[in-house]
């Protein structure tokens, strides 16, 4: 994005008067830029349904042009005045400082102790042991002091988070908290960030706060701020002051605008204050609404399209508005604040000498108790020890690809730039900056940012109320809105609206959003692939792959018109059409009858995109980042498997190891703090496992699919099973249905068999066991359909299993055997009892019968071998139940052999943490077949250094030490010929004390 890049380069200290004017313009430019992106988003929809949405499409393209222009203008302006937009949103602050307020592990007592010292409204989120769910613990006002702290349970529905009793739900905890910072909804008043967080002016300050973690609450920083007179920060401006003063719009507005520039001020918020009784009536809306910006964004578009003026004029106009006077008065204020900040900094620095945060991953240390020390090996446990060092902000430097948002930014940019803040959002930072599409991270980051910061919420609210056209968000409400033809409510009327009312009025459109442009819903954040589809021609091949897979699946589902899923999908399409129409008319009114249905559908639809996808993507990215612990485990394991598949005794053994690895990695991810923010804050508890499972498929199975396939086939061949299966298949295929036990029901004809074969072939191209299983279910469904069509009765297993056996025999696909094995061993154990597990079992049984057809014909007994298999399968499933450890899988070390003549070859070796360099060397000698081992040694090679390792050092520990460093440096273990025996003195290291690499 032009915006962000210019933002980064720009000078950072512009705070004078003229600045505020440009700030405003800049803001508009940005808005337009975002809108532009939105538009690009929308067009895909029209692509898909050209017939239905033609009207929309033209509107859309019209708008696109227009906004493009504006964007250009904005871009010019932008270059000099980025600094104007450096305010950080509530959401940013929350994201940055979650180690402080997201304290899932602390007890109620501890939470109370923290909060008692805080002013009313300060909060934290923890997990209540009593309720077994997350609660928002809020410090109440003094006058309610019978219970100084109140705990509001967080409801986690299938895809969303909401406060108990509220109708508004959010995709993750951050958004939920952000929302309650600006609207009280079901709370007695709005919550507020601790002063030190709310008033932090730079990323760095936030980082410093974040590093304190739970320690923040006891820190001088925290208590000091508490005593400061009246918070004048932007945040608090929308908080209690206005709330308490119910009808004080005017006063409120004044106050508000001193806080920060008007763009950020949610105009309608202020006017939402309303007598509580009114709220009560409205509050109990029905099911959870995924209320949110998407809706607003849509309206937003409209507005722009319909309005006579395009944005620059708007900007001018609004800049003349009285409110901007207040705006420009920002300068003195902010400078005074910055001096305040200095004092804070000093305190902070003093503070930072206090006991360093507990062990490992700096940002998250307080939230989970004993961070994982990936069991066993000292290698893992030594890592934390060095972490404090990593924590020191001073040592952080720009680090190109980083999963840690903060260090990723150049210090100057980090200072203020809110433009880049999107990029800093942990959710969107690319772990591995993929060179092919340099822009993507930024776009997404941006999108994510617009998805919901406070102003967006506020605008959403105002928009929701005034769906037709109205001036751009930045224009304060008090600006005459009369030019808005469709707005029927006067500002005063609106003044009595509350957020929850808004959500009521938008409820239909919420669910609508899902269908409209899935990627948009605030919570159900942008589906990345979709965005990319239309914004950048360069597609991530991996995404593409997966999408392709999904598409294929759909295609194959066509045969089953009756599939529930398909039914839903079609009806959803139909609905979408209606929505499109109503949107075109600039109105959000939906036929009442549709509302309920929408809600139902939305659940299903949201499963198609949603945060889940985002989380999976982030884990996948992490897994590719070798400088992360998780990434190195996964990558090492993958290369180990690729090179050493021969070390398994059978295909099943192989698959079971894979399954075990995935289960262990899931356990690791749940414990570790490498995922930032913690997955608990993004995904409802009961969905986490599922999401992790999906992620593991992507991280592990996807890259290994072909390897696994080949390995399984090899085992099948070498064991003679393939030959046996072929022969028996041929025999079984020649049998009539009756001979296989089919009694009465009509078998599928050749055409149907061909169709089934096709599905099975397609199954082979997938890596996800779950997707394979769902395809198997479709096959079974098809078989049922054929059976039932011909008789109308319900068939149980007595009829189905023989029929399935017959069908599998007819398909004559020996490779199906390994497919079934793959599914059975790798499918998420929790799914094994369900429908998928049932039909998988049946398919396995049918295949086993076919495999032993001859024998069965003779003895009518399943071979003892097959019985054993069943037994083993049982074993592996029960073995699964014990909690796994990561122990086994961190024991890989990749070592390269460097030869003068032949270049490098690398192997992944099993190296335990207690394995010495000497042992590794001899292992290398063996693996690389080096005859003259005395001339070779193991080296640690970094970009510009190369050091021979002493025989008594432990390479695995060195590796974990290096990995734990804040700046992931690339390093390799190289086994190579000693240049000259006399020149090289081994470095002495003791007990894991590490050489300084830099």
């Amino acid at each position, binding site marked *: 994005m032009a915006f962000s890049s210019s933002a980064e380069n720009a000078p950072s200290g512009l705070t004078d008067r003229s600045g505020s004017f440009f700030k405003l313009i800049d803001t508009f430019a940005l808005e337009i830029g975002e809108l532009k992106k939105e538009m690009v988003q929308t067009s895909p929809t029209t692509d898909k349904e050209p017939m239905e949405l033609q009207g929309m499409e033209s509107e859309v393209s019209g708008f696109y042009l227009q906004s493009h222009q504006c964007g250009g203008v904005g871009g010019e302006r932008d270059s000099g005045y980025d600094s104007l937009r450096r305010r950080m949103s509530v959401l940013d602050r929350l994201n940055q400082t979650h180690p402080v307020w997201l304290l899932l592990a602390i007890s109620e007592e501890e939470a109370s102790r923290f909060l008692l010292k805080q002013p009313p409204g300060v909060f934290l989120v923890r997990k209540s042991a009593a*309720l*077994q769910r997350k609660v928002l613990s809020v410090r109440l006002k003094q006058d309610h002091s019978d219970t100084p702290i109140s705990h509001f349970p967080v409801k986690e529905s299938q895809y969303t988070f909401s406060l108990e009793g509220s109708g508004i739900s959010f995709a993750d905890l951050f958004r939920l908290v952000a929302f309650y910072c600006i609207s009280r909804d079901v709370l007695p008043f709005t919550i507020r960030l601790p002063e030190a967080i709310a008033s932090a002016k730079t990323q760095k300050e936030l980082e410093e706060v974040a590093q304190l973690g739970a320690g923040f609450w006891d820190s001088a920083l925290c208590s000091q701020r508490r005593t400061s007179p009246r918070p004048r920060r932007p945040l608090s401006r929308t908080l209690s002051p206005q709330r308490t003063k119910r009808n004080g719009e005017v006063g409120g507005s004044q106050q508000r605008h001193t806080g920060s520039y008007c763009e950020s001020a949610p105009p309608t918020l202020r006017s939402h204050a309303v007598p509580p009784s009114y709220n009560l009536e409205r509050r109990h809306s029905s099911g959870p609404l995924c209320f949110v910006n998407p809706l607003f964004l849509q309206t937003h578009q409209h507005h722009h399209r319909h309005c006579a003026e395009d944005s620059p004029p708007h900007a001018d106009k609004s800049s003349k508005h009285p409110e901007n006077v207040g705006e420009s008065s920002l300068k003195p204020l902010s400078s005074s604040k910055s001096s305040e900040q200095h004092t804070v900094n000093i305190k902070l620095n003093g503070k930072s000498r206090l006991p360093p945060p507990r062990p490992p991953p700096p940002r998250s240390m307080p939230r989970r108790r004993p961070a994982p020390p990936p069991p066993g090996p000292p290698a893992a446990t030594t890592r934390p020890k060095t972490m404090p060092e990593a924590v020191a902000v001073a040592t952080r430097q720009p680090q190109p690809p980083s999963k840690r948002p903060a260090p990723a930014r150049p210090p100057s940019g980090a200072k203020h730039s809110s433009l880049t803040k999107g990029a800093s959002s942990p959710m969107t930072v690319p772990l591995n900056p993929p060179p092919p599409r340099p822009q993507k991270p930024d776009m997404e980051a941006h999108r994510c940012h617009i998805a919901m910061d406070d102003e967006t919420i506020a605008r959403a609210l105002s928009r929701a109320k005034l769906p037709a056209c109205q001036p751009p968000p930045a224009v304060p409400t008090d600006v005459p809105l009369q030019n808005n033809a469709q707005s029927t409510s006067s500002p005063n009327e609106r003044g009595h609206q509350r957020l929850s009312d808004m959500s009521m009025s938008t409820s239909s459109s919420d669910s609508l959003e899902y269908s409209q442009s899935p990627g948009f819903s605030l919570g159900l954040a942008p589906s990345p692939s979709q965005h990319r589809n239309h914004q950048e021609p360069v597609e991530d091949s991996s995404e593409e792959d997966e999408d392709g897979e999904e598409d294929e699946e759909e295609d194959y589902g066509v045969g089953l018109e009756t599939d*529930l899923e398909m039914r839903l999908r079609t009806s959803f399409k139909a609905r979408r059409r209606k929505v499109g129409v109503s949107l075109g008319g600039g109105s959000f009114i939906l036929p009442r009858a549709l509302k309920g249905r929408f809600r139902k559908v939305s659940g299903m639809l949201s499963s198609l995109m949603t945060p889940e996808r985002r989380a999976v993507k982030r884990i996948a990215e992490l897994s590719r980042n070798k400088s992360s612990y998780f990434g190195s485990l996964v990558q090492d394991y993958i290369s180990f498997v690729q090179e050493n598949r021969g070390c398994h005794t059978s295909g099943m053994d192989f698959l079971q190891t894979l399954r075990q690895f995935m289960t262990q990695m899931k356990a690791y991810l749940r414990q570790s703090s490498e995922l930032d923010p913690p997955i608990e804050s993004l995904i409802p*508890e*009961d969905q986490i496992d599922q999401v992790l499972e999906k992620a593991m498929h992507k991280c592990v199975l996807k890259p290994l699919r072909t390897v696994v396939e080949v390995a399984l086939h090899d085992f099948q061949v070498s064991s003679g099973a393939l030959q046996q299966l072929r022969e028996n298949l041929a025999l079984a295929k020649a049998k009539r249905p009756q001979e296989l*036990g089919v009694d009465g029901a009509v078998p599928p004809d050749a055409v149907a068999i061909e169709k089934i074969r096709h599905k099975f072939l397609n199954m082979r191209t997938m890596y996800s066991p779950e997707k394979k299983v769902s395809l198997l*279910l479709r096959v*079974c*469904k098809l078989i*049922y359909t054929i059976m039932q069509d011909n008789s109308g009765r*319900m*068939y*149980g*297993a*007595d009829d*189905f*299993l*023989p029929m399935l056996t017959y069908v599998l025999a007819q398909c004559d696909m020996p490779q199906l055997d390994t497919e079934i094995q793959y599914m059975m061993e790798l499918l998420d154990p929790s799914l*094994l*009892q*369900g*429908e998928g597990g*049932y*039909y998988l*079992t*049946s398919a*396995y*049984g049918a295949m*086993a*019968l076919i495999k032993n057809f001859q024998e*069965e014909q003779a003895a*009518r*007994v*399943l071979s003892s071998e*097959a*019985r054993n298999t*069943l*037994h083993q*399968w*049982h074993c592996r*499933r029960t073995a699964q*139940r014990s909690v796994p450890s990561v122990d086994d899988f961190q024991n890989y070390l990749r070592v390269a052999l460097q030869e003068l003549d032949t270049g490098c070859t690398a192997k992944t070796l099993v190296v335990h943490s207690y394995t010495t360099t000497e042992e590794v060397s001899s292992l290398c000698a063996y693996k690389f077949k080096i005859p003259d081992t005395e001339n070779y040694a193991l080296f640690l090679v970094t970009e510009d250094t190369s050091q021979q390792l002493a025989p008594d050092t432990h390479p695995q520990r060195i590796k974990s030490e290096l990995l734990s460093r804040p700046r992931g440096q690339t390093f390799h273990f190289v086994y190579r010929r000693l240049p000259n025996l006399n020149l090289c003195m081994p470095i002495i290291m003791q007990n894991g004390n590490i050489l300084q690499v830099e």
Partner: protein
Amino acid sequence: MAIRELKVCLLGDTGVGKSSIVCRFVQDHFDHNISPTIGASFLTKTVPCGHELHKFLIWDTAGQERFHSLAPMYYRGSAAAVIVYDITKLDSFQTLKRWVKELKEHGPEDIVVAIAGNKNDLGDIREVPMKEAKEFAESISAIFIETSARNAVNVEELFQKISKQIPPLENPEVDSNESFQLNRQPALSARRCC
């Protein structure tokens, strides 16, 4: 309310009405919230039981002899097994006895066994006296009930009895976190469910 998934396996000769019983059970009081399954071999139904919801995952098996050897895969991990015989066919009762034996030997340890004498609407041509079957059931401390899938007699009751016999959750690991909170309820009340 916590949902607890219970795998229930259906055993018995072919033609005794295993699937009819389950179809009857699942289809009566059809609940629109249940996600439909693709076929009648695997059916689910959720019933309230005390402070829990029991979601039965019902695994039908093929009764023919040739599929007998596959049975372990089906009853493995089951919380309960319903062994069905046809009161009009003595043979099917003999098969039942074999199943009981196999389950005792190879089945899950705490499996709840229920014996269902189906087709009790055909009392005229009964071959298995109720008394004999009942005594057999008592001897192995199994649930016993005679049902008629056709007339919907005792089908619901069969599963209610099973529900009652399922021990309340003690180990939170067995199920999701949700059910964990149930443990806060006195275990007693859970036992007295239904």
